[in-house]
């Protein structure tokens, strides 16, 4: 019985001109978005690999040089893009693509793609994630607002119920009808996505890519399930098809348009972040005056000098067997690191709290749950940016430590003293390994919980509403 109802629904939908237009449009957009995302991924990966190769060669071939001067020249870390970011680029346009790892300073990432784009780019972006999160729910609404309401308007519902069909069969059949129409749309696009991913699996460090993709697909299925359940429930309860449509479109607007932005401003208000100016000032203050305000950089230097002289049992720094500049530089790095740790942890925790507001906003709008989860699995969320930034910063510290060890071999107070050209090969290349799926899922427990809750509650609502179906 259920299959028969589903087949009838499906046939009716596929014959409907509105569905054909909508389906063709969404399918075309989805395929175009996947293709564009894929091309961007291939191009940006090639660019990154080239840049890594060139800058490494430059580093190795800088010739005889003072190690501290080389540390100021520094190295660059380029953020790799996960293949799944071609489906959901997440925040990628709003974080810099590269960071300069130099002496003394933890830099911000540079070159946000959004700054290199027109204002129109911000207005409308075509990505597979937008199609899946925003457009497909509207197609679901379009397919199912009339499920019961239209039959009621036409008077066929009374007839249908008189046949003695079980109401739960009816609900399930209608839902399956919608689902199979959706499948017509989604299966080809999913196959395309998997094929593209399979092509890239060998080339990048994202070993758990397939698992991430499956979980992402599961997240979207829950999201679509919630919309199907909700649409059927509203359709069963609404007095007319028109009212069902207005209610569902209203929900779609709140879910897709109002909530994401409203939540962003709410998060900003709840956990205000510092201005770049205030942040930089605070860091500088801590470095010159000491984190507690009583341990200025001059005093720290004097203390270090006294300790080192005592250790080697000499009177003047000139008499030390090692270059005191190198010791002082490393001490400066060590101190700076604690200051940067303090401030960046505070800043990034503020953003994490703001993002938690985005996640909990899913209590109102399921889009917020699926968006967080999708970005996380695609590796294009803030947490994985932070993961990369932390790895890059650790590499900066390593580079500086090696540079200061080399510095020990140079003459005191002679900043032009050079070490030989072979030295630079001692500095390891920066290698980054993205976090595993379990780490990612751990960041998104509220989203996972709320997405499941939406799906379960929407299904329950659909059953409840069809159980209380009024024939007219």
């Amino acid at each position, binding site marked *: 019985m259920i299959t028969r109802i589903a087949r009838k629904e499906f046939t009716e939908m596929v014959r409907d001109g509105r569905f054909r237009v909508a389906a063709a449009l969404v399918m075309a957009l989805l395929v175009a978005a996947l293709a564009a995302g894929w091309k961007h991924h291939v191009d940006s990966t090639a660019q990154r690999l080239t840049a890594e190769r060139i800058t490494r060669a*430059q580093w190795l071939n800088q010739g005889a040089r003072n190690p501290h001067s080389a540390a100021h020249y520094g190295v660059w870390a380029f953020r790799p893009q996960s293949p799944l970011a071609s489906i959901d680029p997440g925040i990628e346009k709003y974080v810099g693509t590269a960071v300069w790892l130099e002496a003394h300073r933890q830099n911000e990432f540079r070159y*946000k793609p959004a700054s290199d784009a027109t*204002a129109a780019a911000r207005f409308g972006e075509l990505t597979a994630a937008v199609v899946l999160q925003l457009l497909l729910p509207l197609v679901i609404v379009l397919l199912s607002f009339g499920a019961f309401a239209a039959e009621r308007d036409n008077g066929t519902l009374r007839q249908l119920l008189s046949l003695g069909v079980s109401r739960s069969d009816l609900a399930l059949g209608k839902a399956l009808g919608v689902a199979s129409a959706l499948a017509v749309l989604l299966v080809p696009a999913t196959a395309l996505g998997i094929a593209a991913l399979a092509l890239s699996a060998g080339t990048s460090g994202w070993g758990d890519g397939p698992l991430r993709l499956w979980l992402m697909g599961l997240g979207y299925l829950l999201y679509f399930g919630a919309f199907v359940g909700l649409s059927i429930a509203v359709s069963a309860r609404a007095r007319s098809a028109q009212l069902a449509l207005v209610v569902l479109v209203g929900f779609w607007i709140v879910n897709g348009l109002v909530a994401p932005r409203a939540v*962003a401003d709410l998060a900003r208000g709840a956990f205000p972040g510092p201005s770049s100016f*205030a942040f930089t000032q605070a860091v500088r203050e801590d470095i010159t005056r000491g984190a507690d305000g009583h341990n200025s950089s001059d005093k720290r230097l004097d203390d270090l000098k006294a300790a080192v002289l005592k250790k080697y049992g000499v009177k003047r720094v000139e008499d030390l067997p090692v270059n005191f500049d190198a010791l002082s530089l490393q001490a400066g790095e060590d101190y700076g690191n604690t200051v940067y740790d303090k401030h960046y942890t505070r800043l990034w925790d503020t953003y994490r709290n703001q993002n938690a507001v985005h996640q909990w906003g899913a209590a109102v709008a399921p889009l917020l749950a699926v968006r967080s989860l999708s970005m996380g699995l695609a590796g294009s969320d803030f947490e994985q940016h932070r993961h990369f930034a932390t790895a890059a910063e650790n590499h900066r510290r390593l580079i500086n430590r090696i540079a200061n060890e080399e510095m020990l071999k140079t003459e005191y107070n002679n900043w032009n003293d050079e070490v030989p050209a072979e030295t630079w090969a001692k500095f390891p290349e920066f290698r980054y390994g993205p976090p595993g799926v379990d780490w990612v899922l751990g960041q998104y427990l509220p989203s996972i919980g709320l997405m499941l809750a939406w799906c379960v509650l929407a299904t329950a609502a659909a059953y409840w509403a069809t159980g209380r179906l009024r024939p007219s």
Partner: protein
Amino acid sequence: MFLTVVRHEWRQMSAGKILWPVAVLFALLVGYGVWNGLHWVHFQQQTLEAVAQEETGRIAKMRAGVVEAWATGAITDPSEPDPRSAGFLGTRAARNATLPPGSLAALAIGQSDLYPYYFRVTMANKVSFTNNDELENPTNQMAGHFDLAFVVVYLYPLFILALSYNLLSAERDEGTLAMLMSQPLALGTLVLAKIAARGAVVVALAAGFSLLAVLLSDAGLSEAQVWLRLALWITLLVAYGGFWFALAIAVGALGKSSATNALALVGLWLVMALVIPALVNVAVTAADPMPSRLELIAAARQATLEADKESKARLGQYHKDHPELVPKGSGYNVADSYVKYVLSLDTEEKRLAPILDRFDEQLARQQASVAQLRFLSPALLAAEALNDLAGTGVERFRHFGRQVDGHHRAWRGYFLPRLFAKANLSAAELDRAPRYTFFEEDTAAVAARTFPVLAGLVLPTLLLGAFGLVGLRRFPLIA
């Protein structure tokens, strides 16, 4: 007759169940948008105040250092910077070039959360001080701001469509349309009067809140330019709203059911507000792709290495010519290092100029394409124009950029000759260093950019309206 219908509609709407909830909801959303805009303007103002305060304190300290150094005599250790030297003052006593939020900034946040709004302009090259983005959670930036412009561009059309998708179809479904038409009343007059009643409510809300936002943001209401901008803003609101009303008339005139009208209108809204802008974006970036920033980094690294070697050679030559200046003991000489710093950055910039220019050229090309293609989507058209009026669009940032360049040239013109002469400045000379003052963009230029947008909204409105009114002749009065 027209007014009679408007009055009747008004009475019916205010007694009905739809208008007030919708109006209250709209007012709440608009209010939230305005509040967010004000919040952001306030944040920028506070930051700029802190920046100005730091600048005043820093320069006063530098000036005191200059006075003291002239009083106590020369610095003997070449590894210590001379506080009077052009090298020291040209970088450390640099002033900020700032962009204060415009008078209507609270209405549209636009691109203002993406581009820096202050720079500390030193005598070194431009690249060295323009990397000054505001800190912001990228997740929030991705979501976008809930400002008045967002409400106007996306939600205001939806409110209009919600109030007008069933203008005639509802009357027909209830059977009152045939009765109405038995009166000496043209169908066109009826539709226009219904639209007028609804339009008055929606536009009054949007315009009223815009005015309120400007009043709350201490925008200097005595200035004529504020009122002119506000007038253009409200005109734009009316024209944009008019387009969506005309669209509702045109779709309604086809005589379909209320549900079909609603579906068609939501579909059209989706295509115009989301799909076309996305396609415009794809077309624009595919036609003129941006060069790679990573390639720029690699090229810049090469340039740094080469400039470094060159300046080392140059410094070596210099020391050969002036053996008396070669510092004893320490290998470090601050006066030289400032010259070296400025020169090597300049050499670098010259070498990178072709690549850097390519970024600007491609972006300019993309922007030129968007300027044409935006006429395909009223939403995109309105969004760009609203940002432009609020001073948060690309144009005002370009205007600011030109002034930053001007100040940078003046600052270098003042300090570089003194740097190369290794001159020390007196306090009076420091006081005479170029100052930066921001000049607001000419309002006439803003208005001139807004008029084509208005035409781009009014023309389709008239066409759709005409199509709708002609179509009404064949409107089926009975379901």
